[in-house]
């Protein structure tokens, strides 16, 4: 256990030293600042989008890049010669990335509400539920990239390549209403689209759509299991 907490401490320092962390915080904040002029007071759509961008960057960019780099550099392999298993490192990483996603989202909520007069989240528990399920689904995709990419750079490339179409389909590039109908319909069922919609529902006080939550849970479970099955440690 001593090893575990030290591992968490060192890994969190490394996470904060990663330029990707600054990137994942700065981009959604930037979007929020740039576009908030167009959003009226009480708006919750733009803040939900910026939160989705943040979690998407952490899950599709930071998670796979970090884990695949650890494998590529033989760090997971080296760990398996010590009393601490590489699985522990994987667990610590996912936990820290989750914490980071929560903190980034909290900053975005605070900035939206305090500076840009967004409405405060209407239903906090529903929002936390949507956040957790959606983040799990997005992280599962990141884990799948980490599991299958040959190395850190490939993981990075796949993550970025996947990010843009998913962000487009998820309604992060333009409002859903402005998208071609078919794409908008498909986009509703992509991880980022589900996350954005479910968080937006809770934030604005609209009724919870259990179907969205269920699909996110299925994504998290199925994709998570598949990536656990095909995860290579070396």
């Amino acid at each position: 256990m001593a090893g575990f907490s030290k591992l968490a401490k060192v890994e969190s320092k490394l996470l904060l030293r990663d330029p990707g962390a600054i990137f994942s915080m700065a981009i959604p904040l930037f979007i929020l600042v740039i576009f908030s002029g167009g959003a009226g007071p009480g708006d919750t759509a733009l803040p939900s989008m910026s939160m989705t961008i943040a979690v998407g960057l952490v899950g599709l960019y930071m998670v796979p890049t970090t884990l695949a780099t650890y494998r590529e550099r033989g760090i997971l392999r080296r760990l398996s010669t010590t009393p601490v298993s590489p699985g522990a490192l994987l667990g610590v990483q996912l936990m820290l990335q989750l914490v980071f996603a929560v903190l980034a989202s909290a900053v975005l909520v605070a900035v939206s509400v305090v500076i840009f007069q967004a409405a405060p989240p209407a239903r906090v528990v529903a929002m936390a539920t949507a956040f957790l399920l959606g983040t799990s689904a997005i992280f599962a995709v990141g884990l799948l990239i980490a599991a299958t990419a040959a190395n850190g750079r490939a993981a990075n490339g796949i993550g970025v390549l996947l990010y843009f179409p998913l962000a487009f389909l998820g309604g992060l590039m333009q409002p859903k209403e402005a998208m071609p109908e078919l794409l908008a319909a498909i986009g509703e069922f992509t991880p980022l689209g589900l996350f954005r919609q479910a968080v937006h529902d809770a934030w604005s006080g609209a009724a919870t759509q259990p179907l969205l939550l269920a699909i996110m849970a299925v994504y998290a479970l199925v994709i998570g299991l598949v990536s656990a099955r095909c995860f290579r440690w070396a």
Partner: protein
Amino acid sequence: MAVIEVNDLVKRYGRLPVVNEVSFSVEQGEIFGILGPNGAGKTTTVECAEGLRRPDSGSIRVLGLDPVRDGRELSHQVGVQLQESLLPENIKVWEALDLYASFYRAPKDWRELLAEWGLADKRQARFGTLSGGQKQRLFIALALVGDPKVAFLDELTTGLDPAARRVTWELIKRIRAAGVTVVLVSHSMDEVEELCDRVAVFDRGRIVALDTPANLISAVDADQHLRFRPLTPFDDAVLTGLPGVVSVTRSGDRVIVAGRGDFAGAVTSALARDHVPVAELRVEQHTLDDAFIALTGRAFDTQER
């Protein structure tokens, strides 16, 4: 009791065995060398002993434990330096040592290791900024931080300059003096000659010889050469009849005497008796290189990767 026992180890990739019925044992407190050209199966063998790879057949015991089944327990008692492994770019030297120390039941004081391995002034440096030699020394320190009974060091001095190599060798001798058993994978002949109590010579997945470096060298059944420049003319017949001398040839103003056993002593006393002064007298000793050629029929460093 042997600290490591390997019996009939076989490891295949595809249909081809890359380690083929290898057996050896390592005694408490020795530095055991594993020597061989690229691709001989050295890393595969030690990584089976470290529990990183599963043997296809054969048995391995390290400190009486099975590396695969008892991996967790064994990991407290062995230290490992992998041939190919890095750390995160942004981790600081002290953080890496502190972290790895926290994994073990009874770790060493990592501050002492830091000083011992010449990294004290790099304490705050990030891994990515270290030189190759500094990285290598950090890996050795990490292998020792758990205070292991057995240390596996794969390509110990790769990337070190000659001075750093010497320093490292002295430190390895100190590890042995402290009672740690060391398995040293190397393809450097001089390193093995300098450090190892016994050496297993690997070639194409098999052990072709296992002995002390001195015995391996003296077992080479080939002529040795003695060269000199005579300062006065003399007749070759003075030397050709001597015991052990195989041939006498001249090349310019040099004389080259080929022979076996203690022929050099006979040659020099015969020259002295006939009052032939010589200059630039050289005996070319056999080295482990010659031993390797004699064992495999091939030169050591002409191996393809």
